[in-house]
Each structure stands twice: as C-alpha cells, then as structure tokens.
C-alpha cells in the first residue's frame, strides 16, 4: 500500500491559518468527544505542537479555518487476532479510515485533506495520523 499522505488543495490559504476550530456537528456524541480529545491531547503533545503552530479555539466564527473529521469506508474488516491459529473464528472489528478536512469558515473552499491509516471506530485518538500528516505537510510547504 502506498504511504498515506495529506493533500493540499489551497496552500496560500493554509499559510494564513493561525487559529482553527473543530466542527463536529455531524458526528455522534461519542465520536465528537473522541475527536475533541484527540485534538486537545495531541495539540498538547510537544512533538506535534512544535510542528503544528495553529491554535485550537472553540468559536468557529473567530477561526481562520474549520476542521472536520469523518470516517471513510465504515466497512467491516476482518482482523484476525494475534495468534489467530488459536481461534477458529476471526475477530471482527469495525475499522474505518479517519479523514481530516480543513475548510474556510463557510466551507466554500477545501484547503486540506488527510486520510489516516485504518483505526477502530472507537479508537481513543482517531486523529493521530491525520494530524501528523498535517504538521508534516505544513512544515514541508513552508520550507
């Protein structure tokens, strides 16, 4: 499988972003909570915060960009347990690809998109991959 990477749709707009917010209105309560926690925790991560200088704010009307997250391909994928030979029936997990999309406030333009590696739908930090991609892509773009 080729390495996953983010895609920049509007580099100029991305460069202007200093503060962003999360719109989780389309997610379920538990999904929204997971995404919010992921953003908050990983935003506090020194490794990531050194690279992603955007400030996460609550009020989207004050933000330069709006982040949305959704889960692509919510298909059931079969995941065989480690040492699966011990089990005759494979463990079935619901895996999804977390997708981070960044827009202007009114969603007239898509700025950025990153699709992470498959995760369990209830993963605690669903945005680990997409946020790392975003930070890396911003750094590359600004070099």
């Amino acid at each position, binding site marked *: 499988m080729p390495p996953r*990477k983010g*895609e*920049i*749709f509007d580099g100029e*707009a991305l460069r202007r972003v200093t503060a962003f917010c999360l*719109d989780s*209105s*389309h997610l379920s309560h538990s999904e929204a909570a997971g995404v919010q926690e992921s953003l908050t925790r990983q935003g506090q991560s020194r490794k990531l915060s050194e690279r992603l200088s955007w400030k996460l704010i609550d009020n*989207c*009307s004050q933000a330069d960009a*709006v982040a*949305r997250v*959704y889960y*692509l391909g919510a298909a059931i994928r079969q995941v065989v347990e480690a040492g699966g030979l011990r089990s005759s029936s494979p463990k079935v997990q619901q895996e999804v690809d977390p*997708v981070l*999309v960044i*827009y*202007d*406030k*009114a*969603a*007239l*333009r*898509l700025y950025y*998109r990153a*699709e992470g590696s498959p995760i369990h739908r209830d993963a605690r930090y669903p945005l680990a991959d997409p946020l790392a991609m975003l930070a890396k892509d911003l750094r590359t773009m600004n070099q």
Partner: protein
Amino acid sequence: MTKNCALGNSEGFYNAMPRKFSGAIVRAALGVALAYGALPTCPFAVIGQEEDEQSYYKHAYSIVDLPLPEIMSALPELQGLQPGTNQQQLPDILTKAGEAVVQAYEDLRNVAADEEITEQQYGYNGRLLDTSRHHFGYLITVDKAPGEEVLHEYRTNARLKPVEPESAPQGFPFTTNSASMWVLFHPQNRYQTNFRYLGKQSVEGQDLYVIAFAEVPGKAAVTGRINLQGRSALLLYQGVAWIHSKSFRIVKMRLDLLEPQLDVALEQLTTEIQFGEVRIPQATAALWLPQAVTVTTVNGGQLFRNRHAYSNFRLFTVKSETKAAASEQAPPRR
C-alpha cells in the same frame, strides 16, 4: 386555484449539478410526478424525512454570515467587486430578479440541444490524470397542464430518447438540472433562502449585481440528493448569483454545498453555471438557458471537474419525439 409548478427531471436520472435532486418526498406528497431532482418554483412545504435530513445543516456557517474580505479571499471570481455599503438595494434587486425568473419560466418551451461533457480527473497535487469527452442530447420539457407546471431536464441519446449516462469508470457521475437553478430566486421560493447584497461587479462589459445566498435548513425545498457508497444524502446549497443591472436576469451562478456532506464523503461540490439568451427562430421569445456548466467535485479525496457545454438549441415538439421514437424502433438498414 393555486397552480402547482415545479421543475424536475425524470425518474432514475442522475441529477445534474452538484446534485441528484431530491424533492421526491415533497413532490410525492403534492402528487407531482418527480423522482430525483426537481426544483419547485412554488412554495412547497418541507416534510417528513427530508426535514429531518435538513437538520444535518443546522449548524452551517454560510457565505451570508462570512465577512466580505473572507468571501473575496475564498472566491477569486469576485475580484473587482465594488462592495455594497448596505443592504438597502437588496429587496429591490430580489423583486426585479424574481420577476425576471417568472418571465423566463413563462417563456420556456420544450427545447432540445447538444451537450458535450469534458470530464477531468485529478490526482495528488492537482495533477491531471485523465480526460474524457462525451456527447449527449439535452432536453428540457415543460408540462403546462392546467393547475400544474413541471419542468423536466433529460440527458438523451442522438434520437432524443432519455438515457442514463455513465461517467468514465472512475469518474464522478454526471449531473443535470442546471437550467432551473434560478428558481431559488422565484418570488415564491425566496423565503427558503437567506440573501445578502455583496456589491456590483463589471464582468465582460456587463454591470452586475452580486448577491450571496444560503438556503435555510428546515425551509429549503430546492434541494439535491446524491447517492454514493450505497448511501443517500440530501444536499442544500449556498452560493453567489450575478444579476444583470438592467434586465435583472441571472447571468451566472456559483453553488456550493451549504456544508460538506461527509456522510457520503462529498467534501466539495461546486457548480458554476453561465446563463445566456438563446434565440430560436420558431420561439416567440428569447429563452434564458445555461450555456456552460462546470462541476467541481472532491469525493473521498478524488477531484473531478466536469464541463458541460450546450449548443444547437432548437424547439422540441411532440412530433419530433414521436419520429425519434419510431426511428429507434425501426429495424437497422442492411
């Protein structure tokens, strides 16, 4: 008697534009025989399931709310806009644009045209991966039965028989119903949409009023529907209309989703429609129809751009339809 008037396309067709239009529920409730997208010109109620689906958009922050500098930054086509200083002109512009829409609707006749679609698929970092071209016929029919008016748009084969066109194997489905998007400005539909006067702009020698709009979740009856990945999603729109300062006809429209429809991985859907006057010798009045439509889609990270160009407009009569149908059934010549 209240006249039932609507716009739509035929059952089973993929809706143009950014959409496969919805309205099936609304129309069924009203006894109007439309399936996918229809664009009601009369104030249809939003009911049942569709109303629930509109709640997806209830948090949308739209172009109507956005500060003007941010709108201009997001939409490069507004370069040269002379910003309006207030909204005092808006009611008058909407009234006159509404009258122009009513007139355009009354003038409309059954029309056939040629449609050429150029489909482009882009890869990572905007690299063009593939281009394909497709030719179709294009048909607008207006049913003006007593008490009911319905406008249908079809994509057809060379014999003007409706077809359900397939896009390229990896492409985004073709859309339709561009002719009728101006019904958003119909006087009886206006309550479904928030409008904002942005200012004036001179484009190719024409002085135009620029109006931003955003459909109101819970009220919108001019909606789209798209079926992707085995799921169906309702589409509501926001956008900009450029209105001629003298004729008050809508010269150009840009439509975007009111909010990305992430239930079906529809990350962006932008439709730009260029309208123009079409003179057909047999028609008593000039018709106001789409000349070119560009649909830009980002679906699951894949960017597609479909350009639709229309030409060779002519009146379409029942006689020609019968003839076309007959010739299609005729055995092939040896």
